[in-house]
């Protein structure tokens, strides 16, 4: 798969906006999309004299996420200031966590759905809490005129999840992001809305290039501003090629250049060097004297752990082993989120047929959800209603192709499957009658018989059409098979 003359080494820093009502250090709303500068107070404006107070919910949402990422939770954690000047950072420092983060050393397992890479365990260095900055709006003609600053977002709680550089290609990075997002959705700790910036990703990327005397590493570049899964994949792929070209031109290796920051330009599909903020690179971290440390007990950690529920990886495993679904089907269902999984579990239970339930959820139900652009929560059909229909399929009273029609009517009318079957006049055709019908059709169509015997099996399709006219309830597959048998027996 990896045919490049180098290996890409990728570590991701993901910023997750936690689902709280209020900001990390003040009680301003975190709502997205309100008019600029209408969600501020002395604290998040960084006014002289204002003091921060830590949001309890943010801390525990952070802990829940960290536990789900298999991190350990230190009993003692504290807050530090990261000092730098920027107009979207009114205090002149970001309150973050430096040497004693709230969690450390976890992992997230990823696997490819289409065999793009081998399953991989991506280790996590740490997940820590910090506050978001505000929004700067720069004039299009850069440098002309003022920048406008909106501080509504300033102070929104973020969990920064930092991975080890364990990923080896862009697809892995993209899958890691997707799997992480799915996990966060199951945990219900974040809206995970990438357009609104509640899930953001920076990637540290460099190359390992095999050489005669070992491996050459290129200088590390941090790519910022990748706001979709696709841009994560493309940004990294672009950057790898760029670095390889630069290395071929300059021969510069790790240690010979400082870490560079590049922004992903989604419209141009390139990464661009960001202005070196050389003088700002020294953040002078130190413990925030205005915030006090948090100490947690084993009991508190256990309590949060109990609240986590079943996570995607475990669910996939369960749907395969306990319910006998294929890897593909269980992946599709689990990746849609907890809602669809619950729907499936209910359907399986009510219908008594796990595989049939899995196929219908993964197939027709999901197709309709996508078509209507809705989620399972607003799907009109309850699992119990659908189960009724599945039972008709199981008993042979309804065949799969007709069942789709029945499902459509159920959605429209809200009537039960049995009622609709009756209304549509769908009846099970007696096998003897079907044999007779097929015999008659074969006799009536000598040309079809000749064609089939001449090797053109498809010609039998004409008989199926005629059979449906004679009796709309016939099963096309059955007609086909019986007719072919008769012709071959001639």
């Amino acid at each position, binding site marked *: 798969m990896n045919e490049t003359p180098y290996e890409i080494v990728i570590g991701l820093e993901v910023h997750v906006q936690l689902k709280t009502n209020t900001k990390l250090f003040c009680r301003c709303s975190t709502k997205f999309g309100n008019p600029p500068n209408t969600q501020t*107070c*002395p604290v998040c*404006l*960084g*006014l*002289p*004299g*204002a*003091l*921060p*107070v*830590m949001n309890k919910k943010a801390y525990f949402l952070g802990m829940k996420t960290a536990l789900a990422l298999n991190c350990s939770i230190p009993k003692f954690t504290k807050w530090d*200031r990261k*000092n730098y*000047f920027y*107009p979207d950072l*009114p*205090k*002149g*420092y970001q309150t973050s966590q430096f040497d004693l983060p709230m969690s450390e050393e976890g992992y997230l397992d990823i696997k490819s759905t289409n065999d793009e890479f081998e399953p991989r365990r991506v280790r996590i260095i740490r997940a820590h809490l910090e506050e978001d900055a505000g929004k700067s709006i720069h004039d299009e003609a850069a*440098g002309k005129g003022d*920048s406008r*600053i909106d*501080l509504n977002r300033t102070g929104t709680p973020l969990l920064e999840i930092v991975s080890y550089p364990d990923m080896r290609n862009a697809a892995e990075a993209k899958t890691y992001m997707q799997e992480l997002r799915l996990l966060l959705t199951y945990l219900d700790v974040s809206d995970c809305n990438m357009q609104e910036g509640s899930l953001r990703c920076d990637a540290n990327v460099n190359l390992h290039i095999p050489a005669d005397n070992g491996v050459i590493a290129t200088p590390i570049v941090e790519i910022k501003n990748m706001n979709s899964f696709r841009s994560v994949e493309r940004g990294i792929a672009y950057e790898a090629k760029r670095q390889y070209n630069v290395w071929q031109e300059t021969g510069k290796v790790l240690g010979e250049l400082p870490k560079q920051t590049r922004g992903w330009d989604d419209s141009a599909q390139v990464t661009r060097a960001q202005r070196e903020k050389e003088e700002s690179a*020294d953040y*002078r*971290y*130190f413990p925030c*004297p*205005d*915030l*006090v440390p948090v100490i947690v007990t084993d009991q508190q950690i256990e309590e949060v752990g109990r609240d986590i529920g079943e996570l995607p990886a475990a669910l996939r495993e369960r749907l395969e082993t306990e319910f006998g679904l294929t890897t593909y089907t269980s992946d599709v269902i689990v990746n849609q989120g907890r809602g669809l999984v619950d729907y499936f579990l209910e359907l399986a239970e009510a219908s008594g047929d796990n595989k049939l339930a899995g196929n219908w959820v993964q197939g027709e139900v999901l197709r309709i959800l996508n078509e209507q652009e809705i989620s399972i929560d607003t799907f009109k059909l309850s699992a119990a209603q659908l189960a009724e229909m599945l039972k008709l399929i199981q008993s042979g009273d309804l065949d799969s192709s007709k069942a789709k029609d029945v499902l459509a009517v159920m959605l429209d009318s809200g009537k039960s499957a049995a009622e609709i079957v009756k209304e549509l006049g769908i009846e099970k055709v007696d096998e003897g009658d079907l044999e007779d019908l097929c015999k008659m059709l074969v006799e009536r169509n000598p040309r079809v018989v000749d064609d089939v015997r001449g090797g053109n099996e498809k010609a039998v399709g004409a008989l199926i059409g005629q059979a449906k006219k004679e009796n709309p309830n016939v099963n096309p597959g059955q007609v086909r098979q019986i007719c072919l048998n008769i012709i071959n027996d001639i």
Partner: protein
Amino acid sequence: MSIINKTATEQLALLQSREITSVALTQAYLDRINQVDPAVGAFLRVESDTALTQAAEVDRKREAGESLGKLAGLPIAIKDILCTQNTPTTCGSKMLENFVPPYNATVVEKLFSADAVILGRTNMDEFAMGSSTENSAYHPTQNPWDTSRIPGGSSGGAAACIAADMAPLSIGTDTGGSIRQPAALCGCVGLKPTYGRVSRYGLIAFASSLDQIGPLARTVEDTALLMEVLAGHDSLDSTSVDTPVPPYSETVHQPLQNLRLGVVEQHFGKGIDPEIEGAVKQAIATYQSLGATIKNLEMPHADYGIATYYIIAPCEASSNLARYDGAHYGYRADQAEVAAELAEDGSDEGPLVRMYRKTRSEGFGSEVQRRIMLGTYALSEGYYDAFYLKALKVRRLIRQDYDNAFEQVDLIIGPVTANPAFVKGEKTSDPMTMYLEDLYTVTANLAGVAGISLPCGLTKNGLPIGLQLQAAAFQEEKLLRAAQMFQHATDFHLRRPELL
């Protein structure tokens, strides 16, 4: 005897018995301010109109029989470092010349609900950085005992207005001695509470882990009265501590039995003025005569206080003062001048960064800039461990000295300053000598314990001498009771400067 020569406690009694009105009392102080403040310069702004309005409202409430707060009708002066909604708050800096906070400091709220009458804002060293009030961006404050001398600082205005009878009560802040040192040099009482005892919400930060708001007054009794209002837990300040507030004003008159006082050898080392040493030793003798026992204490790290302080405080300040960059409030350098400068020196740093730098260089005075520089340096890569981290460790050692001390004694007794008030300009050229003003006071801030300064004599030249008592965390009650024992036995607190 004029009404303004009475103590706040006496005035409160007269207000309560309706022998005087708050309007009359407030007017008397406004008249006094008009008369003497041109020579003292204790105030940055006198808020006559709002003060008289507040006073009239208290009088009305009293007349109507409505419930009143603990300071009802008493005038008070506030150091210009506490944010007050819709009222300019400058912190003695050009940077905040036009700053009008949209919110109240918790302490200001407390004063409002205690029905106090705010007379105005007192002068201070810019951002509370200094020991002489010469670093105010507006004007210096003179010591009422000798107007050629400094009043101490940074709460110089707060102490001078008490000494000159321009207010019965005032509020200061103490980061390394900024309440106790000016109280000592101006001959009044100043209390630095335990860290966490009084909410810092709305106090414009200098060094957050050291700053503490406290009362100044003429007497210990008055100090206790004000302290009772200021103290208490505040959910808006994470470092505020939730422990009950004793009724200081009631218990202050109860003498302490079997009082054990500790004396620290280093406090009487080289450099201390003999007159100060004499007065403090006399005060110790007074306590002995009141039944106290004296114990010599080992505080081996006391001499490292200033060095520790001048790392930690600037480090925190460098970060706390980063917010003054001209972007969201406060002073901003002229945009056209920024552009012209950039064009002239051909720098590529861009208009934003140059605006920051020009704003901060023009908006901050030189002492503030020096401390920002020191703190930035001490936190920067390669120096953090040697300076900041080292200082945090020595801070722990200093705290352990205190812990050991308070296992043996109730209070530590000693001088507040090594010398009486110095002549203006004497120490401005040499920052280190100015920094040493806080030699005896900084350790209390580093350890977080409480300290009080009270008058214990006058020099031959008629300059006040301060006595310092220090107590373990949250032992303000003990501190006030012991201080009251001394005032009960002496009359130093009744002496007044011959001003006008």
